[in-house]
């Protein structure tokens, strides 16, 4: 970090303090005895993870290669047909693309909306923080069904807010069953995750760094672009990853806002598994969705490693 050189010794100590003390604790504890104790508390959650997540996922992975012989009937003939269907039929391929665009779009939208909010939360007066916190957290405390029903009213073609969206809205259905509508509703749901992630980073940011930048003759905008923002990039990426992974698998909001006309993969997995009982096809879709999420995670992780303050 270039800016490190300009810091006072005191500031440098503050920014690096947690890492140092953590290392010290590890050394003084003695390796032989501390190691088993470290994994012991993890045992219950590991067991739960194995039973609740790894095992079902393994079943899904196997099922994805099996053949469906009618609703609810699986034969053990191994096939790649389920994957072939999703990846070659334009209908399903489009859904896969939509899921990706929706998740990425929601991540970008929540950063754009969430950064200023997180900033105000970290730097604002205390009464302002309270107001913002309440406003930001309310969506988390409302059922997603209720929230979506609210949007359904606002997205109606006759709704007054639609004038602001002009060409984005569909003439007959308004913002219902459209990508812009889905993006707005999803950003609303997931904004708290982004704001809280960014808030943690911005709040920990040492204001003296900005003061130093201003002191050295940079303007406010330049200070933000060259000091503040780069230092919070780690939070931006972490927040985007969190939002992306949640958005790509979210089911209720796309089901209600996208409905039957604008399907994403998550809603299609539900329909295939619960309504049509084509478990092999649903499993293949689920695996593909997981693959996208994992790949994105991987790309992000390698990007984040190059960013100052990230990782």
């Amino acid at each position, binding site marked *: 970090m270039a800016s490190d050189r300009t810091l006072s010794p005191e500031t440098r100590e503050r920014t690096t303090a947690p890492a140092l003390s953590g290392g010290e604790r590890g050394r003084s504890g003695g390796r032989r005895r501390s190691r088993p104790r470290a994994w012991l508390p993890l045992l219950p959650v590991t067991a739960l993870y194995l039973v609740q997540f790894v095992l079902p996922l393994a079943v899904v992975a196997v099922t994805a290669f099996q053949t469906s012989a009618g609703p609810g009937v699986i034969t053990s003939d191994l096939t790649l047909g389920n994957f072939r269907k999703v990846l070659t039929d334009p209908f399903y391929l489009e859904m896969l693309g939509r899921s990706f665009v929706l998740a990425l779009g929601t991540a970008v939208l929540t950063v754009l909306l969430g950064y200023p909010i997180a900033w105000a939360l970290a730097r604002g007066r205390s009464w302002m923080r309270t107001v913002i916190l309440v406003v930001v957290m309310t969506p988390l405390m409302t059922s997603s069904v209720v929230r979506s029903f609210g949007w359904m009213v606002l997205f109606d073609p006759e709704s007054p807010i639609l004038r602001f969206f002009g060409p984005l809205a569909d003439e007959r259905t308004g913002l219902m069953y459209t990508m812009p509508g889905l993006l707005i509703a999803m950003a609303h749901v997931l904004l708290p995750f982004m704001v809280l992630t960014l808030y943690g980073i911005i709040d920990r940011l040492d204001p003296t760094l900005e003061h130093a930048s201003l002191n050295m003759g940079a303007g406010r905008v330049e200070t933000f672009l060259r000091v503040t923002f780069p230092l919070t990039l780690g939070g931006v990426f972490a927040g985007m990853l969190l939002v992306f992974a949640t958005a790509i698998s979210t089911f209720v909001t796309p089901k209600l806002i996208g*409905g*039957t006309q604008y*399907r994403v993969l998550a809603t299609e997995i539900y329909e295939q598994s619960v309504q049509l009982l084509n478990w092999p096809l649903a499993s293949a879709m689920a695996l593909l969705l997981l693959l996208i999420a994992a790949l994105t995670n991987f790309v992000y992780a390698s990007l984040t490693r190059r960013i100052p303050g990230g990782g």
Partner: protein
Amino acid sequence: MSRVCPQHTGGGKPAVGRRRFVAALSVLATVVVAAACGSSPSGSTGDGGYSGTLVVASFGGSFDEALNEVVVKPFEKKYGVKVEVVTVLTSEVMAKLRAQGARAGYDVVQFSGGQETEAFELGLISPLNGEVATNAADANPAAKRADGKIAPAYAFNTTGIIYNTDKVRPAPTSWDVLSDPKYAGKVGIPDISVTAGQNLLISLARINGGGESSIDPGFDALPALLKNSRSVFGDGPTMTQLLGQEQIVLSVFDSGYGYLLAKKGLPVRFAVPDKGGVLYGLTSQVVKGGAQEKLAWEWVNFQLDPQIQVAFAERAGYAPTNAKAKVEGELKKLLPLSSAIDRLEPSDAKAVAENRAAWTERWNKIVGKR
């Protein structure tokens, strides 16, 4: 740490505390068990010397509320037993019965989509026990299932048109109203994932010269409807919201639901179109080899009782199947289905089951493309 809580002493203070705690727990457990046993009927009070619990698979929501009020409570009282109503999708019940049979834990399974025939052919449900289910003899011929080899339907339902009485005039009489330009953008269409959507497709096929086994005319007629539609909804509550806010004034759905909406005070009525409509029935079937088979047949008989059927019609909007059940006065007006049963045709459950997945994919591609 080790000073406060000795690990190898049997007698110290903490151990006594633990023993007392365990004792208290076991007393509590005994009380709970006793209370649970006390609340379950002992069997000697009701008719027929039955006891225990009857597990009934049902559809959930407001349907179960009506079922509970009109059927479950009087049944429990009459037979001195407990009825446990479990909400579960029919497709899921079928999968469970196939995998586990009676061990799946259901005594009675209710069907609405005609899957009972398939269930009988697979040997999952019992043939009709006419000795216990004596009311089955009075069932309307259209209520017979699997040529009368299994329990008949206890209620009729149909898919038709729910319309806003202020905005839609005259009252609709045919499916054509759905593509009437007068109501452009004001029509609701049920998705094929719900029974009403499936029945709409069959009806469209029927009025255009096809049917369950030649569905193409139905799909050909679909785009004209979609052009007029505001929404292709996947569940009743969404439709209710659209109707309530007059975002739609016409919608295709089930008669029972239309009845309930009218009863709740929405300005809507249900119309049975003159041609092509699908008559379907709700049936209760007895799971083969269940521990409560005889009691399950009493349940079936209870639902086939004319008085219970009229009460159920009043409460939930389904038409009775028992020829002795009389629907009169105001109820007859609100329940147009009760006088339209003869001109409606049931659907070919087998063809529907075989084609459902293919129809769904084809439907989704047409609906998604608009």
